Structure formats: C-alpha cells, structure tokens
C-alpha cells in the first residue's frame, strides 16, 4: 500500500495512526506499507517531527523533487494506492482519513490473492 501525504494536510495526519495500527496487526503477513511525503510541498523538519511524534515504524519515503507524485498522478492529498502482489494498482482512495475498517477489508482482498 502506498500513501502520499504531507505534514500540513489534516486528513493525512489523522489517518497515520490507523496505518501504524494496521502495520502492527498485519506484521505476520506480506503487507508492505510505504508512506511518501511530498517533500517538495512540505517542510522536511515538520515531516520528521510528525514521524517522531507518532512513532511511525513503516517506511517513509521523501519525494523531494515531486517525481513520485507525478508518476502516480497525485492531484490531492492524501491519496492511497492499493497494489497487488503482481504490482498492479487495484484501488485508489482519494481523500481521508481512511477508516481502519476499510483498510482491513481492502488489504484482506489483496492478501487473499495467490502469491
């Protein structure tokens, strides 16, 4: 699952604890969560402060030149991509915060696929 976020975006901030909870719930599965910070539209220090405050343990990537957000056609924040084992995007959720219930349902669908 790939999530695009910025520290100044209230729904992005609101959904991060849910992602952390999901990482802990699904630690024994193949799930990978990556959160891409739109650093070209954010302050690196604010982003780092946010990560430390919420003690996020999943990979946080910094898109310093906006190339990742451009490649994924991200027009608004937050945007979350659910990608299957073959690497194909299966669902895109624009806006947030995404409830944990919805994350569980969508991720279970992906994890049920044959490896």
């Amino acid at each position, binding site marked *: 699952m790939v999530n695009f976020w910025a520290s100044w975006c209230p729904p992005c901030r609101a959904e991060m604890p849910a992602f952390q909870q999901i990482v802990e719930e699904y630690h024994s599965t193949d799930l990978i969560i990556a959160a891409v910070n739109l650093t070209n539209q954010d302050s690196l220090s604010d982003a780092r402060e946010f990560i430390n405050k919420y003690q996020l343990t999943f990979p946080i990537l910094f898109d310093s030149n906006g190339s990742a957000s451009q490649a994924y056609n991200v*027009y*608004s924040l937050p945007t979350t991509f659910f990608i299957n084992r073959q*690497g*194909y*995007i*299966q669902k*895109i*959720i*624009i*806006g947030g915060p*995404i*409830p*944990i*219930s*919805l994350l*569980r*349902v*969508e991720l279970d669908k992906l994890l049920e696929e044959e490896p």
Partner: protein
Amino acid sequence: MFLVLNLGPLSIPLPEFILLIGFWAGSALSERRAKLYYLDPNVLEPLLWTSLGLGLIGARLSFIARYPYAFKGQLRSIISLNPGLLDPVGGFLIAAFAGYIIITRRNLLLWTVLDSLTPFFGIMAAAVHLSRFASGNGYGSLSTLPWAVNLWGSNRHPVQLYLCGAAILTLIGVMQISYLKQPFPGNIFLSFTMATVGYFLFLSRYQAPGKILFEGLRVNQIVSWVILCFTLLLSTLFSVSKRRIVIDDA
C-alpha cells in the same frame, strides 16, 4: 481513470459527482414526465429521496454484515462518511424494498410508478457506467483496438463507455415508446429492463474476467439471464391477461 475534477481550489471526486448529477437529472426528467402517467410529480421526489436515504443506511448495514471483523474495536467507523464502507448491492436491494413499501402505503399503482421512473433508471444506468469508467472499476478485457484505454498496465476495451452508450440509446428508445399507447401498465419498465439486460449480456463479453460460478459462466451473466427470463415471463403474463380482458369485454 479520471478520479478527480479540479475546479480552482476544489478537488471533486468525479465518480461520485457523476452519480449525483445522474440522480438529479434522472429524478428531474421522471418528475417532468409523470403527467404522462397521470401521476402527481410531487409524489416521485419524496419517494426517490427516501429510498436513497434508506438505501445508503442499508448499504452501510450490509457492509457491516459482510465484514463484521473489520469493525472490531472500530465502532466509530460505522458512522464514517467514507463511501468505501458501503455495499452497493445490499443498498440497492434495501432501497428497492423501501420504495415498494412507500408505493403500497400510498396506494399508488406499482407498475405505473415504475413506468414513470424508467427515465430515472435509464439515466442512472448511464451514470453508473460513466462513473465506473472514471473510477476504473468494471474494466474491459485486453484489446489492441485503436480506441483501447491503458489501465492496470495493459490496453483494454473501454467497456464502461460501450455500456454507457448502450444505456443512452436504450433511454432514447424507451422515451420514444412512452408516447405510444401502452398495451398494459409496466410495459415501458419491462421493455427497458429487457433491453438493459440484453445489451449487458452482449457487451459483458468485453469485460475483464470477473467472478466465475461454473466453468466459463460469470456471476453477473447468470444473474442477467435470470432477470431476463423473469421479465419475459411477466411481460407475457401481463399481455395474456390484458388480451383475456379485451375478449371478455367483447
């Protein structure tokens, strides 16, 4: 995919916006044509809005019933505004049931109301296919045709646009026959249903493989055949009973 419509500082989720416009346009058209069926146009608006409201509640309850484990320790999610937590099939069934209850309690004629609501159903069918094109859902099978669209890493038939075009043609056809004298109440709605299922069965061959029940037969094709047979049966029964009444009168 066209997920977002950017209007100045606003980012509007396009698939949901198309459905909203479809609902508004469909209800407005049905209300304008209600007089053709000697119905009070003011009856249709509350019927549609109440069914929509109850359908949304039903869609959420149906989603909870399907995925109860997802709400473990997350009871607040039950009232979340996120449309992802809705089950469209459950919502549709509950909205239809709510509509039926309202029609019978108000002593309206079911088949006449369905005839007058057919333009609404027609526009909503087109809106649903267009919305699915915008969201990327219900995508087509692989294609090398020049009008194929690139989605999920391959060129595919824009099957949602084929279905949307067929829905618009069906709507135009239904609007034309609605001016003619009808053999029995419900003829317009049943003709619309048969045409809709017919084009869906034909065009679903261009859809990417979905849930398969038996070998090669998809769930939505089986459901379509059942609806088609049931609609044909109803149409024949109404036609025969109308003919009997005419013979008895003679």
